[in-house]
């Protein structure tokens, strides 16, 4: 029993890393552009399809297909900024939400038209690693390590470059940022491109774990949203911490009971948080 719990804990940490990466882009976009990218999970779904398509139809080597998927998702992120967010930048919150929510429907149906409703995946068999009595799937370990490395790169980008500095200042006070010579439109494009590319990265790490279908993204949008709000909207560190909390709690609950109960518990935890501390773990009081 103890080994099982320990294993669940480790798996929870591994899951937490991937969830942290998943939530990061959504959180960044909210923090900087002050908009909730409702179709974020659908972006992961599209990224998955693009990698799948590049690999199977265009016969690209898998790593090249992944890189291609990441680039295409970055460009799609900018396209969302251009076609949907820019025209609605000063619109009421509800209109922005509805526009991005309708993007969910567009993207899911687009995927169905382009690739059909079948489950598709790239069969990769990755070994299971054994440490004593503990077994870890190497696909999860790889996703975890990749997620942490990507988050590290993002941290350096945000803290060591002028663009990163501009992104952080626009997130805090857009009017003063303008007065400092920053063009927020450019920063919004960079943020959406980064957020889009991140969905491509997440999709690449999901390839060995999942198969994709047009409604694959929905649960990830919800999961990312729960993590972001749980941690404090727009607070990147809060999102990072909450991803691990959610990962470990669901993983351990799944071992003790079932995965369905684990999902319920995660959402109950979320509701409790909203009642006790609506601004989330590290969020500022509104």
């Amino acid at each position, binding site marked *: 029993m103890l080994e099982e719990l320990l294993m669940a804990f480790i798996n929870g940490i591994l899951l937490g890393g991937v969830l942290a990466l998943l939530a990061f882009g959504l959180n960044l976009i909210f923090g900087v552009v002050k908009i909730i990218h409702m179709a974020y999970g659908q972006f992961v779904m599209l990224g998955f399809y693009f990698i799948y398509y590049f690999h199977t139809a265009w016969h690209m080597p898998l790593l090249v297909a992944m890189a291609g998927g990441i680039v295409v998702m970055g460009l799609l992120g900018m396209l969302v900024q251009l076609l949907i967010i820019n025209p609605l930048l000063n619109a009421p919150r509800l209109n922005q939400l509805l526009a991005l929510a309708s993007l969910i429907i567009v993207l899911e149906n687009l995927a169905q038209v382009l690739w059909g409703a079948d489950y598709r995946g790239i069969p990769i068999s990755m070994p299971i690693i054994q440490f004593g009595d503990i077994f870890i799937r190497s696909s999860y370990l790889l996703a975890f390590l990749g997620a942490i490395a990507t988050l590290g790169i993002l941290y350096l980008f945000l803290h060591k470059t*002028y663009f990163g*500095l*501009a992104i*952080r*200042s626009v997130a*805090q*006070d857009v*009017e*003063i*940022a*303008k*007065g*400092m*010579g*920053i*063009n927020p439109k450019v920063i919004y494009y960079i943020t959406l491109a980064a957020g889009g590319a991140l969905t491509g990265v997440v999709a690449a790490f999901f390839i060995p774990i999942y198969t994709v279908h047009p409604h694959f993204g929905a649960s990830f949008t919800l999961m990312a949203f729960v993590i972001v709000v749980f941690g404090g909207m727009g607070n990147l560190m809060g999102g990072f911490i909450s991803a691990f909390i959610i990962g470990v709690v669901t993983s351990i609950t799944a071992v003790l009971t079932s995965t369905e109960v684990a999902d319920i518990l995660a959402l109950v935890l979320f509701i409790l948080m909203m009642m006790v501390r609506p601004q989330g773990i590290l969020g500022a009081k509104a």
Partner: protein
Amino acid sequence: MLTVDAIDTYYGEFQALEGVSLKVEKGQTVIVVGPNGAGKSTLLKTILGLQKARTGSIKFQGEEISGLAPHKVVERGISMVPEGGRVFPDLSVQDNLRVGSYNPVARPNAQRQMEQIFSLFPILSDRKRQAAGSLSGGERQMLAIARSLMSCPQLIMLDEPSLGLAPLVVNMVFDFIQQMKKEGYAILLVEQNANKALKVADYAYLVESGKLVYEGDRDSFDKNPYIKTAYLGL
């Protein structure tokens, strides 16, 4: 250097500025005094491009800048110290300064400029890794002034730099303005504290409810009976 000619600025249907004209010459310190809500901040925002003037022209070094986006105006050499020393609270002191040098003209000199600023404001050097939000009101105002110097400006606009500060700190802020003046920066200072502002001014304007009502050099301002009673409290 800066010529503002008959600008009208609106917030929706509300007219905040009505035919305002003013001039700042090279190396000059010009002040705009007037009561709260007279449109002084709007004037600075309009010059910087944060607000659009509906009519009129704004020329800087002979070129029309009215209608340009703020980042283009900053590039040309105008910087602003916003009201209340509005700094980025979650960024470190150092990063706040670095944002000041964001425009491509200032960026190559950022390192040297920052060292100069640290020797000018040793307190900022001591706290360079601290979040700007943890500074006192006076320190925040200094940081906002220092940040505006980072963009290699030729004209610095200050919006109510003495607002909400203790008298001793206000004196310190005005000492710095005096020092910037000596270094040859052109300064456009907007203040409610007319007494203090007049001491550093070469030329002054009085604005009331969006309109220019009086202008003159320091002496004529000092001697104007209406200004004396209404703004200088003499």
